[in-house]
């Protein structure tokens, strides 16, 4: 959970082909700005990733550069890229949890 006030510049990327690993995804999104974090969750049971990931940029600029490019095609596959809305939801859920 990010502290309120501290801005996060995150992408939510889906439709990632199984052939790409964390390294490749990070490399690709690195071209738009410095990537602070790259979270590509893997299913430990099957050994395959789940097809989506979060990319955190250090700057807003990186986020915007990435969002401006369309389509994002990596190794012949089109990725679906959008700004991450999850932090917002998490905060909201925290609130509700505290109230109830």
């Amino acid at each position: 959970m990010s502290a309120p006030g501290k801005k996060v510049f995150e992408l939510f990327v889906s439709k990632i082909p199984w052939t790409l690993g964390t390294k490749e995804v990070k490399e690709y999104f690195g071209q738009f700005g410095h990537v602070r974090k790259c979270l590509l969750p893997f299913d430990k049971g099957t050994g395959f990733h789940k097809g989506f990931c979060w990319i955190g940029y250090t700057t807003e600029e990186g986020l915007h550069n990435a969002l401006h490019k369309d389509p994002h095609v990596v190794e012949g596959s089109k990725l679906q890229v959008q700004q991450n809305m999850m932090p917002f939801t998490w905060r909201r859920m925290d609130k509700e949890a505290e109230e109830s």
Partner: protein
Amino acid sequence: MRSSGALLPVTWDGCPFATLCRLNMAALLRSARALNLSASPLLLSPCSSAWPCSGTRYYGTPAEQKVVARDEPSLGVRNKQSHQFDWALAKLDSSVRRTGRVTKSLLQRIFHDICRTGYPSGNQALLLLRSCGSLLPELPLAERTEFAHHIWGKLLELGAAYDVSHYNALLKVYLQNEFKFSPTEFLAKMEAANVQPNRVTYQRLIAAYCQVGDIEGASKVLGFMKSKDLPITEAVFNSLVTGHSRAGDMESAVNILSVMRGTGIDPGPDTYLALLVAYAEKGDMDKIKETLNQVENTDISLMDRDLMQVVFTLTVAGHQQHVPEVLEHLRHDGGFVPDAMNLCLSLITQGHESTAFMLLKTFPSVQADSQNSNGPDVGNFFLRHCVNTNKSPEELVGFCKGLMDSNLHAAPMQFTLYCALEAKKMAIEVMKTMKEEGLPIRPHYFWPLLAQHKRDQNTAGTLEVLKAMQELSTEPDIDTYCNYVLRTFPSVDSARTALAVLGCMWLCVLAVPHWSFLGLSAVSSPSLPAIDIGVFRGNLITLVSLSYFLLVHVCTGNLVPPRPENMAYFLYHLFDGMSETEVQAKEEVLREYLQQLHKKGICIPVNIYRGIRNILDSHHVPELIKVPLLCNCYTELNQEVASSSHTWLMTSTAPQGLESRVTLERKLEELKAQGSSGDSAGAALIFKRLISAVCAEENLPRALELKAEHEDKMSPSCYALLINLCCRHDNPEEALNLKRELARMDSEATLDVNKYMSLLRVLSKHNRLEEAVDILKEMKEKDVVVKDTAVVLLFHTFSAVALRGDVAALRRLQDTTFALGLAKPTSNLCSPMVTMYLEKGDFAGALEAVMECETQYHQLPRIHDVLCGIVKKGDTELLQKAMDFVSQQRGEMTVLYDLFFAFLQTGRYREARKIIETPGLRAKPGRLQWYAEKCIGSNQMEALETMVDLTAKLFECDRDEMYHYLLCLCKDTNDWSKAEAVWTKMQEENVIPRERTLRLLADIFKTNNQEVPFEVPEVKQPSSVTAFSSVAYAVLYTSSWWSLMSLGAVYHAEAYNVLKEAERLGKALVPACYDALIKALLSSGSMEDAMAVKDIRKQTCLSLSFPDALASLKTMLQMDQVPSQLALTRLVQGLGNHGDIKGIQEVASLIKSLSPSLNMSSMLFVNNMALAHIKNGDLERALEDLESLYTQTADHSQQSIAFVFRKVVEAHNDEAFDKLRTMAERLCHQFASYKPATDLFLQCLDTGRVEEARQLLQVASLRQRLRPFSISRGAAQTCRIKNLLELIPDFAEKELVYAYMMKCHAMDKNLEAAKALYRRMQAEGLQMNELSLKRLAQLYKKAGEPVPFEEPPETFKFYADKLKASTLPSPEDD
């Protein structure tokens, strides 16, 4: 006609086979019986190939099956289970409908599910059996049959009742799998099981004989069919074509076609297919071409699927060189791709992958558009199946290259690797080839393999993979080591040793600290009071094992659990991070942990619960949700729903008794006689009642007289009544006069929509168009909404104008209505214009009208009738015009269906068939339903039957649905023999009836006193009114009641009936039931019923007798009804109130044994037991029990005995109160248990026992333990807050308390108190929040006083949300 002629009986004159049929079936059966008897020991031996599953127990008679069925434990459990795997069956069914195939794993999973839960129903068994034939192209033929036998035997063991449809399905599977069996034995088995063979059975037995070229055997069966007067259908002849050809007699095979014609049956596509297949077996390409040409000259069209059969036969018979030539004939129509896929799969399964690849290359390549630039990926299924069937890596590489070269697939190698990794086959080999091709090999490609080894703890396998990685020069990264490699080894040391061999020591060293860090952080956390989960949150998914580790420690008590909401997040992330397999594998352990957490008093907020539920659902472990910890949330959710309908109130309007006109007139006279001093308002009221009485008598002259006499008393509503009366009496003149007078009196006066509609009707009827248009305009101005019944009235008005033939008037009215937006231009509202022309037989005019409607309003009213008219008239030019227009406007599909229905309707079935066989046409369920319902409504059996026949091969057509329509009509006409024919037809077509279809069929049989020849599926919804055995039973019935209510309108009627019956029997339901039903009835527009329910509710008082209730609970449990939590709570409370200790204990044990899924709060029983003891005067016992509750368990934040306090206070039982208070104080001092004292304190506040509260506060030093939280919990009650403030003037969160107080004042509408509060806050220098200000302002306004400050401009909701968004819990959140 492909199959509609199939039921035609055949005359046998001149049939050459008739002479062959010496032996009749009875003889055949006799011999079979003899054979069966003598062969039974033989049959039991394992070498019997015909019935691998044989053994007489599999063929139990229905009587035996019934015994098994009666032995079953519980219908309730059964229903629940059947619900559980309904989705699976639906999935199977949809897979078949969509793709024409089923995967083995899906089928196995469902089969396994059914076995595990038991009680397979008839159609579930049918669905499973049916799926074991050509629907499994990925399985070798022998394996399919084996599976079918396995299913057959297993389901029989589980008590499935087999009827003739099952035997027929098994026969079909045999035929599809080319399984060699003995038809006579088969018949003997059927006879032994007491199942009568039917037409379809014989047909398939003939096919079985023919499959092996045994014409003699086929003829025997045929003779028997003849003797039984069974119709000989096309299917039989088709089999004979095959039979003769397999017997090596092509001449006779060809001859069958002329024999068919001789008996009045035209050879259909299947006949020609049989012939083509026969030639294909011989590899006779010339004859194939000749036959194809021959077919082209008939009006028969062969589908791609048929030609694929030819391709298959050619290949299997070793003539693959001819395949390309046949492929050229493919049309690539509607279902091409799924059919071709199935053919490819079958070919691969049988080792003909090169032919399959030939076919694959004819697949349409998906045009890769630049926008959606995922490369083409045709052939995934092909590659996967090749991997699964162990084709060699070289061959696979060849296919991959072929796919790339022909641009069908962008990355076939990668996909092949994916499949190989999934199947854990050849993956390393594929990667080696990829490396040779210059494709990158990444570390995570190896993870699926390592994951498997990790699961198996297979260190050797792991090391092998690592070696392969080295060979492929791919360095394992940290994740590879941490997540997969190291975890395979029992200890760090063993890992280090093993890996050292491979020379990966340095990485290991790197990895180990990382690893131990995880352990360390967990070990060190006991010292921390709460774990800051936030730190983990970002990494949790990668740290699932850590979280799991933590969970274990929390549960075992080594760790202090974090705050509840954090714990909830923790669980959410844990489940989210775990894979489906992991969760499933650890289900039991997880359940145990969750239960332990529950015991520790952890609770989960509802919103997070939803998230967890979704994850668990998607992981297919719905059982976990039922763990108490999670289940509580579930019930909380449900109670939200329940209470929302509970609080719903009905505004009651006192029903007015009908007063006679005479009485009213007399009263009015009396008032008049009293002179002007009399009560004018009262007189107006009586006058109004008089007017409505006169209107009810339809006495217009008298009404007008009265009006003239009492002009001064005419109110708008009186005018409205009179206007309506004039309209009913067809008097537009007077109606308009009255309307004008009304307008003069009150220009704002608005009539209701129905009265406007009557006006409109009368005016347009009398051709007063302008006035009618004015009415419409006025309606618009006054925002009168036209909907539901008013639309119908509008339609009738239009129709009436149309009937007069006044085009101009109709157009004017329609255009005005639609232009004003009073009503939407629906097809119905547009139709009168078309009707007008149709009535005159002017189809050209009608078509024009339709076209105009389409251009103006996008509606095609009555296009079906117009087309039917044109077709009947035979006006091809006009038909062309209509088709062109509709096609241009709505597309080709719409035209085709319109034409299809028009041809069906006019009996031109040949044309209809041509239309429906148009290549590329798909089933449109909505349109088919429309026509079917039309046929059912107008009793057109022939048209409906033809439609069902003609759509047999329509792509994606839901066959069960179609037959269901037919049965609906059979039901309407009560024609059971037709219904039976439909059922046989379904078997012939291999259709699996859904349960409702079977029920309908059974229903038709039963109403005609016919035996139902199959097992009728249980009705899942309890609906029997006789179930009401007592008052309390009705209460307990609530749970099923809710399920009835939640099912929608159809069941509302049912629920209403149940209620009426209950009333008749003098039973009562809980009030919530009534309220919910009223609400439901209102929402579906049944006003009268709703009022009736309301009355019933009023009359029924709820005096429950509890011993009776307990008895009912038992009955209910016996009847497998699951009581609702609410009902149980009431029952236990009632028992407590009566001091019925035994009763409570009994309920507790009953519930315990019922199932763990019904989770009641344990406090319910504890509290009520205590109350029962108190009631019985055994105060000591009660105290003892309660005290032990707090002294013997560690955590009691959730254990509230507030209920006991409240009841004691309410009962003014001071002795008990004092003792309880002493106990609470003692618990504070000796056990540091503040919960009881806090509860008691709040209870005192609530009941105004300020003194006791003050004492408690001091004695128990509660002050620092009271949190604003506790007051926000309870209902906002003025006295509680006031008392609280009085006792603790320095209460920390004053602003919050004041906010609550303002809410209370607002609720009490106490302006003075609110004002005082405002002043007090100002004096104390406190800011009042906007929500409270808004409340205060509202109070001022309601009292009619000016607001002395600026009222916050936004809505209440806005400020409530704003408050909620800030950290303080607001007074709105309860």
